């Protein structure tokens, strides 16, 4: 369980799915993003900053980086989720208003990358998803953007796929590694 930090425990709001869908359908442009580094090497992070600066300039689409997950529609999740960041990552995603969107960036975000099997990481977003479920945090839509580091063009494409403006380049298919 995630502690509420001294706040009174509110009953979880009953979500009307129709309201959620309607909200989601309206979310087409001017999305606000929060950049969540879960122990990444900085490679994806500097590419995220790159798309915000003049050469790629996503602010022309109204995409804006914000300082708090409470203001964000979308989380840009980079890194393989190290064990020391788990608690903070869960709290950050929990703080987002619904609908919660996640763009899992880079090989690490997609499946742990080169760190998929070390003792100090969870191994990317798919494993974090299980922990989020246990903590009762629902995420409404996830798009995976691979690459090491992820290319700036791919980040923009991924955001467009998430909003339903473009079609994904490949279908999502999960392969579970067989442990020896």
């Amino acid at each position: 369980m995630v502690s509420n930090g001294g706040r009174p425990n509110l009953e979880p709001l009953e979500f009307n799915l129709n309201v959620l869908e309607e909200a989601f359908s309206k979310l087409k442009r001017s999305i606000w993003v929060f950049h969540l580094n879960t122990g990444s090497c900085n490679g994806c992070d500097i590419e995220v900053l790159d798309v915000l600066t003049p050469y790629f300039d996503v602010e022309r689409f109204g995409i804006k980086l914000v300082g708090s997950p409470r203001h964000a529609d979308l989380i840009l999740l980079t890194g393989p989720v190290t064990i020391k960041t788990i608690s903070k990552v869960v709290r950050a995603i929990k703080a987002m208003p619904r609908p919660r969107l996640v763009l899992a960036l880079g090989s690490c975000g997609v499946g742990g990358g080169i760190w998929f099997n070390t003792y100090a990481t969870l191994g990317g977003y798919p494993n974090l998803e299980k922990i989020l479920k246990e903590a009762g945090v629902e995420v409404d839509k996830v798009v995976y953007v691979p690459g090491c580091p992820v290319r700036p063009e791919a980040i923009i494409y991924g955001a467009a796929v998430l909003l339903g403006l473009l079609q994904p380049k490949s279908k999502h298919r999960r392969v579970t590694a067989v442990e020896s």
Partner: protein
Amino acid sequence: MSYDLNELNEMIEELSRGPRSHAILSKALSVCKDSLLGLSRSGVTIRVKIKANCLRTALENIYKEHDLYFRTMSASDERLREGLIKLYYVFGIDSEGTNIVFEVPVTDGVKVDTISDLFRASDWYELEAHDLVGVEFNGRALRRLVLPDDWPEELYPLRKDVSMDEIKKLYQPQVVSRISELGVEEVVRIPVGPYHPALHEPEYFELYVRGEKVVDARYVGFMVHRGIEKLAESMKYDQVPFLAERICGICGFVHSTSYVQAVEDALGIEVPERAHFIRSIVLEVERLHSHLLWLGVALHLLGYDTGFMHAWRIREKVMVLAELLTGSRKTYGIDLVGGVKKDIDKDKIPKIRETLNQLKKEFKEFVDVATSVPQVRARLTGTGILPRGEARAYSLVGPTARGSGLARDVRKDYTYAAYHYVNFKVPVYTEGDNLARTLVRIDEVFESISIIEQLIDMLPSGPIKAERWEPQPMRLGIGSVEAPRGEVIHVVITDLYGPYRWRVRAPTYQNLQAVPIMLKGVDLADAPLTIASIDPCFSCTDRALIINLKSGNIKTLPLEVISRRRWKDG
């Protein structure tokens, strides 16, 4: 085994590389001749095998030498081979380019005397050796540094007898509440926004403030510990450079180069000249992009976003250049043990020249404007002062040291790759404030452009990698590279198929320990820039925990917000 004095003096005479290493070795070893287990030299590295009980005595004699710096320390579990754990302390004599390695065998149950009061930089190394390998130290407080607080006792991940799968069975990561995370009781009672990770990297500083002034600071970090060194032990020699490059996404190539240099040093591999040139060119391209990135971020933290955007606009040209040279914008992946993977074609050279000329022109224009903005100058001048003496005591590296008047540069002091062919200056400023560190980096951009121009003029022909090389077990190799942030040093102990032990030391590891000194007495608004001025790998926007001592209020805010806000007393 013990040596008599004459025998010892003869050996030191034979092994030393010059007057400085002779003087330092004589001073250190004259008091320890009964505890000396062996003395040898390979290349620029002198290896001293010494019993644990005499290490401190030996170092007490030499810690005041002006050109002796603590470079790194590696703990290695060699119980399966020699029945004990070993510590390798690496010191460097800057004026001579000599490494002195103190090899200390530690038998079970023996405590090693701390040297963290002699060489203050060694503080974290000792904590890390305690966390990961289970070495005990005398005369200092030990706490968890790298691993989480709920990590099981007596489980040391870097010991050879625990496998990755076993560790994963023994430790299940959990979502913990805020109380146990911070270890402070009152924190719970104060409603704070959800404490979430940094915008760019999850690291924390706790700043203790009285009114506007920072009175103390504490670093709470190691959020990005990913178990790299354990992972490398299951990899082959040529797989590790790819792993090394992913240590840091901003300056990854310095890590892979440092690793391959360490292996080449250990096994005595001859690298073709052309490979040395290509490595140097790519290293300088990386420095260009990193310094431009830092400059942009520093201006952003000052609230001068125009400068931020322009710096990143100019930087994009470097990224395109990197892609042209290596096929990748970042994480180039061209390093191999014994050479490089990708050649630089002749027809690329005019394009490199054109880009560099453009870059020089645009950067000059930009810097002239940015550094003459009065607000920028006022915020940079006289803030975050790091005196030369402190920089020396902490063995600081890179632009942080050079901004405090220490002319340390691995490219000059322990020259590697093709740097001895080129002519370049090492910019040094003595003020030790944020402006000095900024100017060092600006000068270095121009130097780097000139270095690349000289290198492509002189690029020799020939092969780009060594034909063949033979791995041998249990050799020690040291490789160091001047990264954009300072000295990167890797220590490798070899095995038949891959490294037996690989110790990575990034420049921030050394420099971060000095940040609390810089922060003491600065205005809160200048704290973010001061932290960023060492160019830590979490430079862009971090989160700080602010505790106001008078009222006991605790707030968490992104660093950029602090820097733009006026704080009222109480």
